[in-house]
């Protein structure tokens, strides 16, 4: 159970050898030694990832909060009836725009994040499946239970 775990960068070197060409971090980043920070990313992967996150977050904040704020500031302009579909604009932006905008944004993020995984050479899902028999390591890992 323990030998197939890559701890402390030891086995990660071997793994990087196999995947080395695809990586843009040169394969020598030790992620366990690089600080996690929302504002000053310490690895190229984190920098790329956070750029996506903040971009998405900014667009999200506009989708969620711009309609009510504008409706409060300019109620008349915002409640104009829209052509064809007949919605008052503010109603449409909240009831239809809110959920739809978030859904599209989520799709955008997830696709971009997959692309980011590919860029860093972890294309086919960054968690291996079926590596260990189910539950084999859990009891030890959790230190509890009688499994």
């Amino acid at each position, binding site marked *: 159970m323990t030998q197939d775990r890559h701890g402390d960068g030891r086995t990660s070197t071997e793994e990087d050898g196999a995947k080395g060409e695809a990586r843009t971090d040169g394969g020598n980043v030790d*992620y366990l030694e690089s600080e996690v920070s929302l504002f000053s990313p310490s690895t190229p992967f984190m920098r790329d990832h956070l750029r996506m996150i903040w971009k998405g977050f900014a667009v999200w904040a506009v989708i969620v909060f711009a309609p009510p704020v504008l409706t409060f500031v300019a109620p008349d302009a915002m409640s104009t009836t829209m052509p064809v579909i007949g919605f008052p604009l503010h109603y449409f932006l909240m009831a239809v725009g*809110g959920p739809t905008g978030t859904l599209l944004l989520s799709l955008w993020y997830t696709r971009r994040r997959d692309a980011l995984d590919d860029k860093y050479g972890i294309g086919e899902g960054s968690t291996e499946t079926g590596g260990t028999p189910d539950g084999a390591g859990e009891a030890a890992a959790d230190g509890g239970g009688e499994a």
Partner: protein
Amino acid sequence: MSLAYVLQSGLLPEGLNVSFKPLPGVLVAAMLLLFLVIGYVFKISDTEGMWVAGRSIGNIENGMAIGANWMSAASYLGMAALIATSGIYGLAFVVGWTANFFLILIFLAAQLRRFGKYTAPDFVGDRFNSDTARALAAITTFLIGFVYSIGQARGMGLVGLYIFGDIGIPGLTGYQSMVVLMMTITVAYLALSGMLGATKNMAVQFTILIVAFLAGVFVVGWVNGYSTLLPQIQYGALINDLSAEFAEPFGNFDGFYIWIATAFSLIVGTAGLPHVLVRFYTVENERTARWSTVWGLFFICLLYWSAPAFAAFGTDLYAENIGPVYGEGGMATEAADVIVVLAAQLSNLPTWFVGLVAAGGIAAAIATTAGLFIAGSSAISHDIYTNIVNPDATQREQIIVGRLSVVALGALTTLAALDPAAPIAALVSYAFSLAGSVLFPMFFLGLWWENANRQGAIAGMVSGLVLWSVPMINEVVPTYGLLGGETLSPALATWMPAIGSALIVTPVVFIVTIAVSYATPEPPKETKRIVRQCHSPKRMKRQQTAEDIVTDGGEDPADD
């Protein structure tokens, strides 16, 4: 006027006749039986199955489970109710309850999967190396399950009453009898299944609830000539014919403020709800965690696009057939809470169809209550009993304690739902305020700021719990006839409403947690490495946790 009186006087039924209806009755009974059978077939015998379904759930199945787990009576019944009675304020729920998933997607889903533990309190306890923090999170989880389920019980009671009529438990009203019956069924079902059974059931429950809701909105729109193929857009043209209250922009700053407070609270609340977050522990890997969030959100949008349409149709039908919706003598909250069923009834559709729409509401309530009770009982059994009280507990003991907790939650919820304080959506919102105030800051800071430490987490959670209680005591406790029966401070209720208190409390908890963490020693190196492992792009095995990687398979580091 008490709810009991309202129901006996026949105010709820307005056009919705309360009596035993054979065909819908059979339909709902068959559905409940199906849940029991599925739960039994996939019943579990170990704790891994009980809590995280063996970490075996794939993309679309987990997306459906996210949808079923998420869409409760509050989405199915309560949201249309608020949209119908409170105008654009109700849209804060449509926006807040979909926008939340993007926040979870970018900040929490994959990282939580990599962390790879069992429950939300597990995360808090292990990340902050503290049994006190674990216990605080477990108590909060239990409390969330309780508060959240009151609204579900109310929904099941009202809808069940419509289908089965007054089953006449002595000493209780028809509504109360139905709450007792429905909660008994829910508890029995959970005792039989566990997480794997409940997750398998959620796909079924999702299918029933989404088919029932969409069929309802399409057919109601069609037979009344409101819409043809796209009711989700076509109701727009109806809005100008409805009372102005339906779509009126904010009348004053208070209206705007409470919209923002509610939406904010619902968003951060979701990102702290244990029964939602546990869905990311049950998936195969972190990519599945992300994609199933997108799938889940899509499934949720199907209902959320339709709810305002249903509300618009219902409002119009109500005004035409029964009376004014707004103002004095307008629609009662009990009638609003079943407006989805009412709209079908008022369209003169066959009873089996109205029954189908009602059955969807019950499926929604049961699926969510199941998720909540499992999260709540695992908090007691796994986090408090096994991790703190009796570390040598056998699997059998753990499961017994878990089942007893489910029964306790069921009893508490039933009692509180006999005379509920508010409409479904409002009841549920109190739980969101709690989750957003106490747990969301722990997840967010725990995963994104490696210097957040034990002292900070404990101080943050305690202040979150205390501050959340303030508006609850101010507004909600008095509605149960305690503390004089009136809101204690109307000014406080305006600025820190129970329904959206997280707008104030969450930032305070962030500040407290950060300040205390700065003032006290940094967390151990190993904890920081676990946080880093949650963000690393390196692969992990399915059953591995971040802690396994960091300790290289060594012993579990001792909690404090």
